[in-house]
């Protein structure tokens, strides 16, 4: 009771201030509010700087800069810039990576969360986490020396000979692929490998977080384990799994180093995935330091604006999807 007496004996002004500050709650609130304000202003500031510094390019080229329908050319010597090929490169590599990574990642996640025997889980989990932590430059090097020649080139040849011969598909699958393997397809496959651990780890955690009572409810109705996974667990975790996929997409579209190393870095037109190209991130990384003119630098910054907006849009879509799924299933 000694403490209680000490509190009572405190001077009046001290108690008054304490009351006004709600004994620290106000200070905490203010601190937290300030830090969130800081984050928001940082984003706004970045957006504004990008917008401001791309003025030259925006005034020069207008909407044609990002249009798929104008003849494209990227020629620093003639001060001619058009961003569509690199926008296309970013989209196509990320989308292919996602299409390939989703079934893989979900399969591994289901195995790790639901099927693997207890003794096999720790080593497998460790490997997934390690793969997620490998620096992208290492993926790039491994890509150039091992993955491209050994795997991408042979697959590329097959694609060129099959899908590439079908009229209508030639635009997207036409060969030949460069002997080095440097191509949009190579970049897409490297991205697949890079985002698989991310999507896997997050979806695994989503599955593990599903209450056991859901599995029990399904099994008690006479469902098999697979029926339980497909009909109960995946729908239950759908919003979380969507989140994992969006995370993977974000990583793919923003990935710079590994892609720059394997995509070939050319602004040539054409849509074939077997050909070299650029992505938004890789063209900025590759050319910005050696921009030959103010307009060149400004054009690269405008690409940064496009990348920024794309990412924001993606996040908005993701939020909407997650909200939609939650609303439909959980009734909130």
């Amino acid at each position, binding site marked *: 009771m000694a403490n209680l007496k000490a509190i009572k004996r405190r001077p009046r002004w001290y108690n008054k201030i304490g009351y006004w500050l709600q004994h620290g709650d106000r200070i905490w609130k203010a601190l937290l509010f300030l830090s969130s304000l800081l984050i928001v202003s940082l984003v706004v500031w970045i957006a504004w700087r990008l917008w401001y510094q791309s003025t030259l390019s925006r005034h020069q080229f207008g909407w044609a800069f990002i249009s798929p329908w104008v003849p494209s050319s990227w020629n620093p010597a003639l001060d001619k810039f058009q961003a569509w090929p690199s926008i296309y490169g970013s989209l196509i590599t990320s989308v292919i990576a996602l299409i390939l990574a989703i079934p893989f990642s979900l399969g591994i996640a289901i195995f790790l969360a639901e099927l693997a025997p207890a003794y096999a889980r720790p080593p497998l989990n460790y490997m997934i986490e390690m793969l997620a932590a490998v620096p992208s430059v290492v993926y790039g090097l491994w890509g150039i020396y091992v993955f491209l020649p050994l795997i991408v080139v042979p697959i590329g040849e097959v694609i060129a000979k099959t899908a590439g011969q079908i009229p209508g598909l030639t635009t997207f699958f036409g060969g030949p692929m460069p002997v080095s393997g440097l191509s949009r397809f190579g970049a897409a496959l490297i991205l697949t490998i890079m985002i698989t651990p991310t999507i896997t780890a997050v979806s695994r955690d989503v599955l593990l977080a599903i209450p056991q009572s*859901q599995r*029990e409810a399904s099994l008690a109705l006479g469902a098999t384990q697979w029926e339980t996974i497909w009909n109960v667990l995946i729908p239950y975790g759908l919003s979380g799994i969507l989140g994992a996929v969006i995370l993977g997409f974000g990583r793919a579209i923003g990935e710079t180093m590994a892609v720059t190393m394997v995509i070939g870095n050319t602004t040539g037109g054409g849509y074939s995935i077997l050909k070299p190209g650029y992505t938004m991130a890789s063209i900025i990384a590759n050319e910005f330091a050696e921009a030959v003119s103010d307009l060149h630098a400004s054009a690269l910054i405008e690409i940064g604006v496009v990348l920024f907006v794309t990412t924001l849009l993606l996040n908005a879509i993701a939020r909407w999807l997650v909200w939609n799924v939650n609303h439909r299933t959980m009734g909130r």
Partner: protein
Amino acid sequence: MQNTLPIKMEIQELSVFYKSFRALNKVTMPVYEHKVTAIIGPSGCGKSTLLRSLNRMTDLVPGALIEGKVLLDGEDIYDPKKDVVDVRRRVGMVFQHPNPFPMSIYDNVAFGPRLYGLKKRAFLDELVEKSLRSAALWDEVKDKLHQSGMALSGGQQQRLCIARAIAIEPEVILMDEPASALDPVATLRIEELIFQLKERFSIVIVTHNMQQAARVSDYTTFLLMNEERAGELIEFNVTTTLFTRPKDKRTEDYITGRFG
């Protein structure tokens, strides 16, 4: 006891182990057809363990081991040749905490039938309505069948789970303290429901509430832990007899509240 009653399930010398821990020791008792059998006893005495061994939910626990037999219409459900999926379709379960799926009310009830491959809309519509009516939920939800089952109140969710269980027409329904998470009014509705359901199903219900056991059941089993903390059957009898003229001193102590 009237031994001429048809027996639906027969538990013979059943012991359940979790790894090396014996949770249940040589329990023998019948489950009569179209009757409600209550399992009572203090917390941790193995009530849930006994109940879950009746539809092989114990299979889900790594390291769980079964000794003895559980006969369903004379056939041992633990026979290696027996299909566990088939056992669970014949012996349904309602859990302590309502666990509807995050789907619409309709899809929750249609979940089991769809597993059978029943896809016809008209047929499913009819079955869903019938099951919800049997679970005394139809009037409350008939206008919002396509809203999420998660948005219902606790008592409604539990009745939804009952509707989901009876939609596949099991022969036995196991209930593990189905009302313990509910308020008194919702509890009463579940108890009334159990009374109606026994016309169509044989019911085994675990409860730690003795008044509830006395109200809803025809037969009661009293379990108690022995010195090694293994649950043992102390007494099985017609509910009214067990509560008014218990044979065992320990049963008497428990039902008069002189016991943990």
